[in-house]
């Protein structure tokens, strides 16, 4: 899938001028962001669990080959199948092949970011297989032919009115205003689809090496209906979802919901081990787990290995001032917000995405709330370095930096220059006390005034005071 991240600035500007989007984004602050603060405070062990979460993921990644082999052996022992996919194209081919073997005409799908990443949605449809998203948010954006704008709430960019319009248009029913009625309508429409599906596709939040189990987490209960009704269950997931033991999975689960939505626990956490057992009355007859690499092994052993700890909770975006202003679509690919700014250059190439690691004020809030303590600003800085090395930085920024470096490495000249500039600005701005317009600083003054400097520099004032004291 082509990333459109280079248009970040244009898209962000459009987002700021879009009142519906700003209304929708405002709800994240009062909702998920505030709830996360409360949930973290309500569990005394929360900070210790974050340390442990980091430790679990670090240990797993350091022994990933051993845990992959352990997981695969256990899944096979239980009668399931593990498929490895080197890249997105291979993953798509495996999933299509599994659907064809199951003679599938329709598949239901519960939310999976890896599925978005490999572009399975368009691929299945292009190959004549009907795909129905069952997560409500994902269903809404499927109808609207949009990308998810948030890890946890794919339709977080939409207001209730927009969803009313979408349902009215696609369900050929009277326009509903009440959220409860909208949920009820989606439930009714999707219910029939569950029964008609030949294959159910889900993601996985965690894979448990010691038992060959995998864990899904939803609030709607759609993952259980997606995997529980069709004959074939396909899990699209990725290497770094592994944890060593069941206890480790539950340690991370205690972090996941609290960090994501501020819930104590999501409504449905399901641990599945193998396909339907002898004598069971329900459950899929065949189980396939597709383990996608798609560039993850390139991150192993590098500074970006830390990013593989990510458990996809969305806390970094819920707390990011840039995300909360620009929304998810401005990021131009599957993963958005601070975690997306680190991951997208890895998947889509820095040449196509170098705007993203720059879409940050480095305020540090993302790292502060990350349940597995990923140093997101540090990793974005790494990408900026790569961008500079590859000559991708815009010429104005490059020359600007070179000019600044010229002066900064010549202190006498630097002080002379700043004294001159401050003196001049101080004089010019003396009357108004501020500048409404300033040449070369239009980016600043377009939305706010620049306070006029006092007319002297810190170094000059310091020198003067010191002279007085001595």
């Amino acid at each position: 899938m082509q990333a459109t991240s280079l248009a970040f600035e244009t898209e962000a500007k459009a987002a700021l001028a879009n009142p519906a989007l700003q209304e929708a984004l405002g709800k994240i602050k009062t909702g998920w962001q505030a709830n996360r603060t409360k949930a973290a405070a309500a569990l005394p062990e929360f900070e210790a669990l974050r340390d442990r979460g980091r430790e679990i993921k670090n240990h797993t990644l350091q022994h990933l080959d051993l845990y992959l082999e352990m997981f695969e052996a256990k899944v096979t022992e239980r009668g399931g199948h593990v498929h490895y996919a080197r890249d997105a194209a291979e993953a798509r081919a495996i999933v299509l092949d599994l659907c064809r073997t199951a003679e599938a005409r329709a598949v239901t799908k519960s939310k999976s970011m890896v599925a978005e990443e490999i572009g399975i949605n368009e691929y299945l449809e292009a190959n004549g297989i009907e795909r129905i998203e069952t997560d409500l948010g994902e269903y809404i954006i499927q109808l609207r032919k949009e990308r998810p704008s948030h890890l946890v709430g794919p339709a977080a960019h939409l207001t209730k009115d927009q969803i009313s319009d979408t349902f009215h248009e696609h369900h050929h029913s009277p326009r509903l205003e009440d959220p409860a009625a909208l949920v009820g309508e989606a439930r009714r429409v999707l219910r029939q689809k569950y029964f008609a599906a030949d294959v159910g596709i889900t993601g996985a939040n965690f894979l448990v090496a010691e038992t060959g189990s995998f864990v899904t987490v939803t609030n709607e209960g759609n993952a259980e209906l997606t995997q529980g009704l069709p004959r074939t269950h396909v899990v699209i997931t990725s290497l770094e979802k592994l944890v060593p033991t069941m206890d480790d999975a539950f340690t991370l689960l205690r972090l996941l919901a609290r960090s994501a939505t501020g819930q104590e626990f999501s409504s449905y956490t399901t641990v599945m081990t193998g396909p339907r057992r002898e004598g069971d009355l329900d459950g899929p007859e065949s189980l396939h787990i597709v383990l996608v690499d798609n560039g993850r092994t390139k991150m192993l052993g590098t500074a970006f290995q830390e990013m593989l700890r990510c458990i996809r909770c969305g806390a970094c975006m819920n707390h990011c001032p840039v995300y909360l202003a620009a929304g998810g679509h401005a990021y131009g690919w599957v993963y958005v917000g601070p975690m997306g700014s680190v991951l997208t250059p890895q998947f889509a190439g820095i040449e196509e995405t170098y705007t993203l690691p720059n879409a940050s004020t480095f305020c540090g809030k993302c790292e502060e709330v990350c349940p597995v303590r990923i140093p997101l600003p540090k990793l974005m800085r790494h990408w900026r370095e790569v961008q500079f090395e590859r000559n991708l930085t815009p010429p104005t920024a490059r020359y600007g930096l070179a000019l600044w470096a010229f002066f900064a490495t010549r202190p006498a000249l630097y002080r002379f220059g700043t004294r001159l500039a401050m003196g001049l600005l101080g004089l010019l701005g003396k009357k108004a006390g501020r500048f409404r317009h300033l040449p070369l600083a239009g980016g600043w003054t377009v939305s706010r005034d620049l306070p006029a400097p006092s007319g002297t520099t810190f170094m000059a004032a310091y020198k003067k005071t010191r002279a007085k004291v001595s």
Partner: protein
Amino acid sequence: MSGSRAAVLGRVKAALGRQPEEEARARARVAAWAATDRGGFVPARGQLTAEDRIGLFIEYARAVQTEVERVSGPAAIPGVVARYLRRHNLPQKLVMAPEPALDEANWSSQPLLRITRGTADDSDQTGLTLATAGVAETGTVLIASGRERPTLLGYLPETCIVVLPTDRVVGAYEQAIALHLEETGDLPRSLNFVTGPSRTGDIAQKLELGAHGPRRLFVVLVDPEGGSSDPSAGG
């Protein structure tokens, strides 16, 4: 695609770059990890006396819109179920897990209640099943799948009723799984941890119940016959 398997595992090994002489030590670290005692990572709040655990379970369950009623002895279950269905204006009809333990309740005491046994289909409005455990930590019930406990009972009907004996309320998720393993010796196909009815915030972050799964979750806490029963904890 065995070529892909070898390729991906090869990439992982190459990236980790362990020398052959480190291999045994790496395997030892993996073995040691599994053997570590993890008691320290279980939140203290669920680690209480039996009665306090039940109290905490009820508190957290109600906080996520689970309805809870506590009764004494299995004989009281049918009456509570029938009353619950009446209160919510639901038909006196349910599909029940073919779990023999549920037969201990005297269902014939409610002659109007029509019961079928098995898994649910789209036409069933109310499902009833037996929980393996209750988790006090977050007011969660664990329903383990099996021949006698089909999973769809807890997901397809709009109303889900779960019978939970009070002596099965534990503090933490790990203890709930341990209880299941103690009794059966193996993981089931599906361990369903359920914390409240189905919900979504996908429409402008407004909480709505009954997105795909049940709109209502009713937990009947059952004290052993002649055991303690606290009427003030009722529904």
